[in-house]
């Protein structure tokens, strides 16, 4: 055996697990054992790592022989024995399973600050984090810096909250520090309610200690001795890894009494959300931790003055907190050198939808959206045409093709009627109907509205009803104007951010895709051919080869026909699910 050291890293975030990461890791362990390999190496480890980002290629596996890393994609358990035999035992990496050029293009424009260790370390091993410089920032803060120095540093870095609103973090900490009171709280907002977003989940699954370290530093700066992580119950893996990390940190006296002899007492509790989007809003989140219905209240007073149990409270997003240790370690100047003047640093995005390379990305603020979609994302899948990127979830908007050169930062996106938001980025193609997209989000906000204030409770319902009828081909003249008027009213008069931003998906699709609304209302047509009420399927006699695929796929029994004879579709039975359209290899099913 020539090699001295062997390391195997298997991606086991939620994506990697769903693709079978656990089976792959077990296969490696079994193969290594079977071949009696562990003994042959000076150091041999195989283990799980958190999200590597490129989830579309899972299961991703790194095989590192004496520091020489080879990354494999789409790995399944049955492929493992060949990798072990040829690569590890015979020194010939299996080239056909290795990642290709596009894997590197996916990573080239990214800068990993928050995600630096995600996908590199075992998230359940505190030692792995410490080995890479983890908790050094906390140690430095506790032993060398005063609370005011830390706040000054965070202010200088220009870090803004990553939870959506972009509020300067240092300013928030300072306000909480100056608020009178002995008891103060730090809350990490891991509710991540925006559909289409999984940045915070991935950070906690991949590197929970970075968030804990950020919270320790925040606690020291603000003078808090209690912390909470409010996390969605829909994220069981993240919850489990967070709990493991908290226990490990306690054992090392990084949490608890008199942390590292500094005099700081601080511990963190985990609170599970119970499935209400509005609880991501900070005052609702506080009500929820207090065990109540998660209804927002009017601000001021802001949580920094009167938060949890009426005490001064800092609420920060997961990604905001995970940035803190890097800022301390590498300096405020370094952080501020990334990004743009008003939007410093990097931002993690969940790139999903109709793009080839879906996954988790981290980019410096200020790069054009076009680079994200067409370079990192590899362009639109299946040769389709780009239509829009939806950012900011239910509070956000759509960015059309004309605006693809927009720079990704808080102000530029705001100008377009979209927002950076928490980081969801959903790519839409020519098959997506923009009225339907607006309807989707209004359906979401309407059902998640807590009901406390009338504009949001009733207004979103009325918006949804109008959008509903438009997508059903029952739109009326004047509906567009009504949508616009109602949207403005809801924005101006709602109590919290949910209602204030709920109309954004309507307004932004109206701004850029008004013609689609008009086509639905005036011509009773859905230009994207997506709205079921406005399309019909039929089978072209000339093109149908009578293969029977559509007949087998049809769940409604609407298709009949003899083998090798053109088939027929009974319109009365058709439920317009599109299954026939998808399976037909001869383009004989026509959608109109």
């Amino acid at each position, binding site marked *: 055996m020539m090699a001295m050291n062997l390391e195997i890293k298997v991606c086991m975030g939620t*994506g990697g697990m*769903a693709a079978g990461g656990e089976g792959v890791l077990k296969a490696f362990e079994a193969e290594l054992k079977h071949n009696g390999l562990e003994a042959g190496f000076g150091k041999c480890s195989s283990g799980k790592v958190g999200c590597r980002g490129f989830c579309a290629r899972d299961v991703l596996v790194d095989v590192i022989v004496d520091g020489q890393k080879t990354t494999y994609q789409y790995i399944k358990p049955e492929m493992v024995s060949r990798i072990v035999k040829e690569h590890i035992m015979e020194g010939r990496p299996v080239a056909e399973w290795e990642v290709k050029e596009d894997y590197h293009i996916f990573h080239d424009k990214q800068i990993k600050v928050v995600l630096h260790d995600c996908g590199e370390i075992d998230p359940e091993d505190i030692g792995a984090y410490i080995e890479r410089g983890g908790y050094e920032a906390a140690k430095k803060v506790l032993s060398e810096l005063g609370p005011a120095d830390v706040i000054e540093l965070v202010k200088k870095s220009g870090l803004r909250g990553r939870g959506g609103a972009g509020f300067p973090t240092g300013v928030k900490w300072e306000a909480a520090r100056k608020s009178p009171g002995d008891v103060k709280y730090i809350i990490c907002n891991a509710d991540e*309610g925006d559909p289409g977003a999984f940045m915070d989940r991935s950070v906690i699954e991949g590197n929970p200690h970075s968030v804990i370290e950020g919270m320790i530093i925040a606690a020291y700066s603000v003078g808090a001795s209690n912390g909470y992580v409010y996390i969605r119950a829909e994220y069981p893996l993240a919850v489990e890894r967070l709990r493991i990390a908290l226990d490990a940190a306690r054992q090392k006296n990084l949490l608890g009494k008199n942390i590292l002899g500094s005099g700081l007492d601080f511990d963190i509790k985990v609170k599970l959300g*119970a*499935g209400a989007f509005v609880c991501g809003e900070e005052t609702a989140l506080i009500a929820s931790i207090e065990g109540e219905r998660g209804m927002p209240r009017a601000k001021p007073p802001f949580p920094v003055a009167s938060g949890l*149990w009426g005490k001064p409270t800092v609420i920060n997003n997961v990604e905001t907190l995970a940035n803190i240790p890097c800022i301390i370690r590498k300096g405020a100047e370094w952080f501020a050198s990334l990004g743009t003047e008003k939007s410093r640093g990097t931002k993690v995005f969940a790139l*999903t939808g109709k793009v080839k390379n879906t996954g988790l990305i981290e980019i410096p603020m200020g790069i054009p959206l076009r680079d994200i979609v067409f370079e990192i994302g590899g362009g639109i899948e299946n040769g389709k045409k780009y239509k829009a990127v939806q950012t900011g979830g239910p509070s956000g908007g759509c960015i059309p093709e004309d605006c693809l050169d927009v720079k990704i930062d808080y102000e530029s996106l705001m100008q377009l009627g979209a927002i950076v938001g928490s980081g969801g980025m959903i790519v839409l193609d020519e098959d997506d109907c923009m009225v339907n997209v607006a309807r989707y989000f209004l359906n979401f906000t309407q059902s998640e509205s807590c009901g406390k204030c009338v504009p949001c409770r009733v207004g979103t319902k009325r918006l949804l009803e109008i959008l509903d009828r438009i997508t059903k081909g029952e739109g009326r003249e004047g509906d567009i104007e009504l949508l616009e008027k109602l949207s403005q009213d809801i924005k101006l008069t709602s109590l919290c951010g949910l209602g204030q931003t709920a109309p954004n998906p309507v307004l932004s699709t109206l701004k850029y895709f008004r013609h689609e609304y008009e086509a639905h209302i005036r011509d009773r047509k859905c230009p994207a051919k997506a709205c079921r009420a406005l399309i019909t399927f039929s089978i072209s006699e000339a093109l149908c080869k009578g293969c029977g695929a559509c007949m087998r796929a049809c769940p409604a029994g609407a298709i009949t026909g003899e083998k090798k004879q053109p088939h027929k579709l009974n319109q009365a039975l058709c*439920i317009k699910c599109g299954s026939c359209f998808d399976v037909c290899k001869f383009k004989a099913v026509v959608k109109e």
Partner: protein
Amino acid sequence: MPETALTEAEIEKLEGICAKYAGQKGSVIAVLQELESSFGYVAEKAVNFVADKMEMPRSHFYGVATFYAQFHFKPRGRNIITACSGTACHVKGSDRLIDNMVREFGLPEGEDTSADMRFTLEKVNCVGACSIAPVIIINKEVHGKMTTDKLNKEIKKLKGGQ
């Protein structure tokens, strides 16, 4: 269907839960989460027992429970299938998968559990596995890049299973 009375074992369990959270402020949600996981839903008899024991108004528990999507008020099926309705899943055709399951499970209009209690279909906002959309979770196991075909195979397995 009226609920049966609490069994000895259930009472013991509930007393344990009450003891665990006694005197802790803000524990209503945590208590409800325990009820949901022990009974599979928030059973009326359990809520009433706990509220009385903890000397809190029953209405307080119901007020909180009805606010959050995680709590269910009816028993649920033996197989729980969760369809993600997040944005990425939506644009990748989750509606079609859901319609398909409603048919396959024979769910009555407006119900999420089949009459024989074998299947419960629930929709959730987003499970955060968007890069492998559309996602269906079958009895806690995450299945990505779902198609009607793959789904029907899984359903067949479940139907054969019991």
